[in-house]
């Protein structure tokens, strides 16, 4: 493909133009199916312009033809589609052999886009269209929405792209001083800052350090920029304290000087002690009819094409200028051999700059006091072909007629706006002086400095000095961390800056199409009409008109919009201001933000044994727990089988996720007395006691058992989801109580099982011959320490599921060995594992509540019928006072058991309502079909008058059907507690 056709013979400008390209390395790629040959170092846009292909994309709304505007990735005029990514910026994306590029936002062909006729509909799509259409007439929005979804092209995501190509991730970075912008100010600042051995990171979005020194002209002697750059780069390369990050965009400033940097597929999170913003300035367009036509470009873009890529922007260029930069551009173009047909200078007085003096040699006609009133497009090439020049007679006003000039490239140089975004994200304020048309930035936070043209410096020496000053200021911050008062800029404007911005480069045309916002196709009238519709505040204008809401985020529309709004509302630009700058500075992908996802997953030491036994796992917080063992379509039968096996034989469940907290010290019992509701002072060593936890409002928030292992040592369990909070809460309280206890979270130190069922004793007995398991020696709620299968263990006789049962806790890494030993040993009984689902059925049969399922943010012990677990006579416990207050108030509701016999579809579910006619009386918190009892059982909050056993409850179940249930005494199963006491 390479070298085929006429494309390879395209001429480039002679050296030294073309800093970034390698003339010996042709690169062949495809644009719209056509092979294009560029050079190594070209971007898609520079290679296309080299072939005269200015038309590269279509606008979002009217599908107007668009081409490069900034050549710096600052606009949305060249969004193209790559196979792997939509919305790629052609003016910065490097070409590569075989790269396939498609234009976006067109129907038919790029050259003849039939949807571009939407432009004819423009008068039916007034400003605020979306707002208006949302309201009335009713239903019309849906009609328009279909139209716009087809119309508004945004490229296409290729869902077939492999994971590897989207291998995005994140990494932290650290620096003493981070400098954003590798232009003259940034480079100078870096060198100054790195002198003290501090770590400096210099960030630039371009492939080559130098910023404007790479393309802009600072003096009649064009070598000045190049020599300055080479010297600075040489020093930077020799300085090991400076890390240079090119091709890296700083997309956000966040609190604590935390910078979001995007480099290829990686998001760097850079934490810097000091930040220096040397982000430069953004050149602004002139506003006239046809200012968006391909071939109408910023002067900085023309200079980039020439200096970076050796591409002539046109064969007969017209320069429209409002400052001396236009003359500098014309001089560079002329030196490169590009024909400059005319200079159109908006100012009334001739330029006295050294560029103009040097230009005399080229005899370029200068139209003083004039502007381009309209640019016209060549229908075939879709590129500018002619401009109309008119004399300026007032602010934004021209004479009634002018002269026509043929041209194929119009260069605009009318002023700049500081690249203020990062500074304003940090809280900086952007000010504008209406008299001088100059901006300034202030009120940015401590530990931030700004330097260079973002700080209003334009003369090269002034810029370098400003970089040095900023670095010294940052160094003084580092030296003296105490002074946090906001740093003000020096406020001195470089005298060169005075003429940099032409005050009113905007010329309305009766037929419109003078674009203020290229992304959103907004014209002068749209902004003015927004103010007439009553939206006079710039923030409201933005939202109403969508001005500045496109991909370029107002970089070229904010100033013009502010000027227009100020003019229309008879205020100053300073008063009008600009809209808030928020991250990201440039478009970023969701993949960058997602990075690698970290979802911590906790597994017990027995985890894989569950998997091998066919468990269906569920998540409980970060933990994986077995829900039940068996096939997914066999859930109900599996659960029933597991329940039956526990009730009639012996089952085993992994309870490792249960929280465990060690309370040790002389005041351990006193601590528990204060923390939990129950009384613990008289608890015997070797016994466990139920522990109910309330918060200060008397609301039940957790429960567990407190095992007294020693006079001064309790092992307290907590719920799986609650233990971290309970542990933190214990520490916080004891800081204030100052008791002599040590509290530590030992949840993961232990791996445990609950061995439950009438045959559990005989299984366990064979594994721990040293412990007497008889009912007399090891009663219900007893606790023993000993060896199980040779493994050191804590054994607790508990009855959550209502059968004879032993919780066996062993050090975590012995968990799997314990499981193996018990499963092996229990074979003779037919031991089988059971999961969380069966446990929920078993505990409900036994009438035990689950905190969080059967309680809510209001549940107190009285309404849970758990006052038995509250020791009211204790001097103090957390929640005690509130519980007493609540007890003095009439009872609002009671958690009761209920039962009913209905077909499976009518069994109430959690959150189903207890009703009286159409009045809600309460709600169901748990309900299951009990395999043991052969009926549905559940728990529900009901009013006290319905709480007596035998009361009838009407419950509204699925599909609005109603069933009747009877309130029953708890527990449903084994009310005399005979089985757990065996």
């Amino acid at each position, binding site marked *: 493909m390479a070298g085929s056709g006429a494309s390879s013979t395209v001429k480039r400008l002679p050296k030294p133009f073309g800093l970034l390209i390698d003339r010996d390395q042709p690169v062949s790629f495809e644009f719209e199916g056509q092979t294009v040959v560029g050079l190594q170092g070209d971007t898609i846009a520079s290679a296309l312009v080299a072939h005269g292909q200015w038309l590269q994309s279509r606008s979002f709304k009217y599908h107007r033809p668009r081409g490069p505007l900034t050549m710096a990735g600052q606009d949305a005029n060249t969004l193209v589609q790559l196979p792997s990514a939509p919305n790629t910026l052609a003016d910065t994306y490097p070409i590569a052999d075989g790269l396939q590029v498609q234009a976006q936002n067109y129907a038919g062909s790029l050259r003849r886009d039939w949807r571009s006729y939407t432009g004819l509909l423009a008068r039916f799509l007034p400003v605020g269209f979306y707002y208006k259409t949302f309201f009335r007439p009713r239903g019309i929005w849906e009609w328009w929405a279909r139209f716009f979804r087809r119309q508004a092209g945004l490229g296409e995501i290729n869902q077939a792209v492999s994971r590897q190509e989207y291998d995005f991730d994140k990494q932290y970075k650290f620096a003493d001083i981070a400098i954003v912008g590798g232009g003259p100010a940034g480079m100078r600042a870096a060198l100054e800052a790195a002198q003290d051995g501090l770590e400096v990171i210099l960030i630039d979005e371009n492939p080559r350090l130098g910023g404007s020194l790479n393309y802009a002209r600072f003096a009649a002697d064009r070598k000045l920029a190049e020599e300055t750059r080479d010297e600075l780069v040489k020093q930077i390369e020799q300085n090991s304290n400076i890390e240079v990050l090119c091709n890296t965009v700083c997309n956000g400033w*966040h*609190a*604590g000087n*935390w910078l979001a940097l995007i480099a290829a597929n990686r998001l760097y*999170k850079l934490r810097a002690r000091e930040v220096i913003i040397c982000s430069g300035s953004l050149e602004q367009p002139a506003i006239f009819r046809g200012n968006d036509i391909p071939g109408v470009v910023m002067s900085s873009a023309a200079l980039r094409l020439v200096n970076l890529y050796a591409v002539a922007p046109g064969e007969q260029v017209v320069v429209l200028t409002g400052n001396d930069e236009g003359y500098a551009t014309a001089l560079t173009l002329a030196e490169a051999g590009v024909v400059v047909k005319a200079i159109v200078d908006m100012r009334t007085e001739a330029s006295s700059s050294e560029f103009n003096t040097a230009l005399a040699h080229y005899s370029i006609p200068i139209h003083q006091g004039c502007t381009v009133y309209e640019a016209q497009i060549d229908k075939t090439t879709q590129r500018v072909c002619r401009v109309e020049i008119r004399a300026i007679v007032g602010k934004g006003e021209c004479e009634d007629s002018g002269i026509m000039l043929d041209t194929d490239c119009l260069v605009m140089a009318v002023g700049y706006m500081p690249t203020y975004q990062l500074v304003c994200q940090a809280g900086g304020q952007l000010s504008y002086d209406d008299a001088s048309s100059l901006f300034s930035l202030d009120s940015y936070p401590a530990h931030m400095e700004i330097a260079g043209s973002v700080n209003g410096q334009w003369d090269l020496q002034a810029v370098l000095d400003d970089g040095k000053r900023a670095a010294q200021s940052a160094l003084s911050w580092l030296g003296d961390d105490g002074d*946090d008062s906001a740093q003000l800029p020096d406020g001195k404007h470089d005298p060169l800056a005075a003429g940099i911005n032409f005050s009113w480069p905007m010329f309305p045309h009766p037929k419109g199409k003078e674009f203020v916002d290229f992304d959103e196709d907004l014209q002068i009238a749209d902004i003015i009409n927004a103010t007439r519709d009553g939206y006079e505040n710039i923030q409201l204008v933005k939202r109403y008109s969508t001005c500045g809401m496109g991909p370029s985020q107002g970089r070229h529309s904010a100033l013009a919009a502010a000027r227009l709004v100020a003019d229309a509302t008879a205020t100053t630009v300073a008063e009008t201001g600009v809209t808030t700058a928020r991250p990201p500075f440039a478009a970023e992908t969701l993949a960058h933000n997602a990075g690698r996802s970290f979802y911590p997953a906790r597994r017990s030491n027995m985890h894989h044994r569950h998997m091998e036994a066919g468990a269906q796992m569920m998540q409980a917080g970060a933990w994986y727990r077995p829900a039940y063992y068996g096939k997914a379509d066999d859930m109900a039968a599996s659960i029933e089988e597991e329940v039956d096996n526990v009730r009639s034989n012996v089952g085993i469940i992994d309870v490792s996720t249960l929280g465990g907290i060690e309370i040790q010290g002389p005041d351990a019992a006193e601590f528990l007395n204060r923390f939990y509701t129950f009384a613990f002072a008289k608890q015997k060593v070797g016994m466990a006691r139920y522990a109910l936890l309330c918060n*200060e*409002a008397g609301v039940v928030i957790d429960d567990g058992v407190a095992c007294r292992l020693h006079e001064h040592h309790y092992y307290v369990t907590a719920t799986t989801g609650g233990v971290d909070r309970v*542990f*933190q809460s214990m*520490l*916080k309280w004891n*800081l*204030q109580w100052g008791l002599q206890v040590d509290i530590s*979270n030992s949840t993961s130190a232990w791996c445990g099982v609950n061995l439950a069922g009438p045959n559990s004793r005989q299984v366990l007995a064979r594994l721990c011959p040293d412990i007497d398991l008889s009912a007399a020696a090891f009663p219900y709620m007893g606790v023993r320490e000993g060896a199980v299968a040779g493994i050191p263990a804590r054994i607790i006789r508990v009855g959550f599921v209502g059968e004879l049962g032993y919780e066996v806790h062993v050090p975590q890494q012995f968990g799997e060995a314990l499981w193996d030993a018990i499963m092996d040993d229990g074979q003779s009984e037919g031991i089988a594992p059971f999961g969380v689902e069966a446990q929920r059925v078993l505990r409900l049969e036994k009438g035990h509540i689950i905190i969080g399922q059967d309680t809510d943010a209001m549940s107190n012990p009285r309404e849970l019928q758990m006052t038995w677990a509250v020791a009211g006579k204790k*001097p*103090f416990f957390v929640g*005690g*006072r*509130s519980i007493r*207050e609540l007890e003095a108030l009439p009872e609002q509701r009671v958690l009761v058991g209920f039962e009913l016999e209905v077909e499976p579809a009518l069994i109430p579910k959690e959150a189903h309502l207890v009703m009286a006619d159409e009045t809600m009386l309460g709600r169901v918190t748990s309900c299951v079909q009990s395999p043991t009892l052969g009926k549905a059982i559940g728990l529900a909050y009901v009013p006290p008058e319905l709480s007596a056993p035998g009361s009838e409850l009407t419950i509204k179940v699925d599909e609005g059907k109603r069933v009747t249930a009877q309130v029953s005494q708890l527990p449903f199963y084994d009310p005399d507690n005979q089985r757990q006491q065996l």
Partner: protein
Amino acid sequence: MKLLTCPLNGPRNISEFTYGGEYHPMPDDRSADSSAWAEYVFFHDNRAGVVLEWWCHTPSSYWFLAERDTVSDQVVRTFAFSELGDTQEGG
């Protein structure tokens, strides 16, 4: 991301911390009247200005106190609970 300086561990990303609410000493739960008790349990000062707050560094489970200006959102200082005696608790 914001930084908060833990008295034990130094400056850390705010994501390493758990907020523990405003610090209020508990009134005597036997002698306080009901409204004083309700005030303590349910109400927060929500003061515009410097407030005293509980924070916990999660990885080390270390609780400490922070004086934070709710107007400027600057943390004035952080300190161990044991140093509370040096601070005047307002309100």
